[in-house]
């Protein structure tokens, strides 16, 4: 790839954004950066795996928070020397990191292989079942967690420092974003999109469809595991409730409000969610209209509804339309080169499975 090809407006914007985010703590290293932004970046890093699996593989996974959780639990069990619960293996923190990621990736591979012959609603249900089983496992197996979870978890140096942890979240998010975008152009990524569009055709072209699905799922699990490590370092503890159905759905909602077919949407959706979650109660007189903190889900639900009505492609979809509407004096290639052979394209010929 030449430097010229790398210098697209999108990449330039990303570079500027990353530099700004990295420079931000110099101005303000308080609550907004180390709480709001770090949390949004971590949620975004989990949600982007949902976006990847959905947009490139046609697999809507409800197991991504589980993989984040597995990494967190494994790290806690391996790194702690003594604690109220868990195995307290007391391994060096970076060994614990490798162990956590290895276990997460292996579990993702196995669960992915098991789900690789299902699609659509069946895949969704199966991953939901994974999530429920994972939750139950950690809630009931007291040797590794139990309902109270694993507490007093300390991040490896230098990430005990909140600003450094924020830096890590920025850098890893940028890397994941670039990697997922690049994968779409590789043989593997193209094949995965082929599997999404028509698995039968992919088989008859010579591709191993279940293996492609399994590997994509494994990759998604690995990245979610990385996010899970950041999460457990940031919170200092992890309990089964944090990977129960409620939070699982929140991660899905984040991916959807951001825009399920845009990688950047994952972080945008996460930011909107965390801002709402954090600041709704400081809106003046909010409790007067009956919105006590336990009803914030209603606000979030209404936001989701509003965004979905405005744009099924989420927030990034809205931004795209605004951008095209304003600067879009030059019509896109496609609108010039309309199909000429038949005036009304026949939809049944698209070959897309229901």
């Amino acid at each position, binding site marked *: 790839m030449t430097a010229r090809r790398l210098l697209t407006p999108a990449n330039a914007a990303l570079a500027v954004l990353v530099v700004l985010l990295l420079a931000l703590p110099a101005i303000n290293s308080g609550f907004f950066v180390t709480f709001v932004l770090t949390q949004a970046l971590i949620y975004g890093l989990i949600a982007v795996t949902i976006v990847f699996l959905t947009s490139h593989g046609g697999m809507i996974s409800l197991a991504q928070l589980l993989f984040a959780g597995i990494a967190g639990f494994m790290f806690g069990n391996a790194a702690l020397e003594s604690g109220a619960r868990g195995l307290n293996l007391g391994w060096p923190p970076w060994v614990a990191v490798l162990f956590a990621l290895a276990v997460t990736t292996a579990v993702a591979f196995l669960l992915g292989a098991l789900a690789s012959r299902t699609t659509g609603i069946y895949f969704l249900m199966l991953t939901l079942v994974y999530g429920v089983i994972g939750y139950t496992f950690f809630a009931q197996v007291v040797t590794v967690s139990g309902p109270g979870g694993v507490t007093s978890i300390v991040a490896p140096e230098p990430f005990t420092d909140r600003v450094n942890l924020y830096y890590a979240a920025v850098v890893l998010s940028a890397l994941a974003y670039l990697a997922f975008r690049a994968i779409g152009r590789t*043989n593997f990524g*193209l094949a995965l999109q082929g599997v999404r569009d028509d698995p*039968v*055709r*992919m088989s*008859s072209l010579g591709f191993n469809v279940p293996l492609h699905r399994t590997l994509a799922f494994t990759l998604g699990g690995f990245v979610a595991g990385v996010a899970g490590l950041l999460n457990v370092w940031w919170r200092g503890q992890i309990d089964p409730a944090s990977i129960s159905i409620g939070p699982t759905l929140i991660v899905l909602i984040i991916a959807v409000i951001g825009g399920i077919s845009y990688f950047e949407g994952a972080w945008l959706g996460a930011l909107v969610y965390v801002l709402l979650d954090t600041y709704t109660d400081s809106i003046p007189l909010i409790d007067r209209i009956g919105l006590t903190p336990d009803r914030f889900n209603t606000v979030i639900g209404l936001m989701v509804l509003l965004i979905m009505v405005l744009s099924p492609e989420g927030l990034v979809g809205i931004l795209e339309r605004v951008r095209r509407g304003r600067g879009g004096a030059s019509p896109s290639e496609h609108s010039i080169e309309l199909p000429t*052979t*038949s005036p009304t394209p*026949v939809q049944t*010929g698209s070959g897309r499975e229901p």
Partner: protein
Amino acid sequence: MRPDTTTGATSGDPVVELRSVVVAFGGLLALGGVDLDVAQGERLAILGPNGAGKTTLFNVVAGDLVPTEGSVVLKGVDCTHLPSRHRPRLGVGRTYQKARSFPGLAVGDNLYLAVVGRHGRQRALLPRSGDHSWRDRAAAAAESVWLYDRLDTRVADLSHGQKRQLEIGMAIVTEPDVLLLDEPASGLSRGERERLTGLLDELAADSTLLLIEHDMDVAFKVARRIVVMSDGKIVASGTPEEIQANALVHEIYLGSEALT
């Protein structure tokens, strides 16, 4: 190896051998015991009314369907239970009656995937210098199905006819030894049909072609042997001239339609 036009037989080795192939969908016999030998280099057209089992026959050869009974031998290898994904490497390439390309990908990527499917590196995450030649082949195939100026167009934005052209392109780009075309001319204009006939005439002499086609112009121009199917069985087989003269064929398939 040119087919012997007088008898319909060919001198090449058999590349497709179907032995008493039965395909049952519940109680329905889509194929009711089909025997068929196709020799290397042969140009075979399969005719038959709707529901005769033509597509089912292709599905069995391409591996999309495992026959209920009987055996499928390709190039001397028993493939009866071999999954479809192993067949491109045996040189089998097919099109589908309803275009089945990848709507979310560009025309060039569709063709490129077909090449990758046949030649490997399917899970590669890093590009390799050889990928360029595969891209070149995809571009060349796009040119031969008149889609060169659409290489970067998403398939979803193609017209119906262009999707049909791409369907053919995805089959020929792998340079298959055994090419199965399921009604390639449907949805094409008259001019495009003529170009299609020309394209099929240019196929390498040793590649084998099985063609399902309702368009007699295309079928009789391209094929040296015609097989007629009805109700899951082969009811007639012979040269285009023999088939045109066959009374049974007229009765079951052509009805009042005259063969031209």
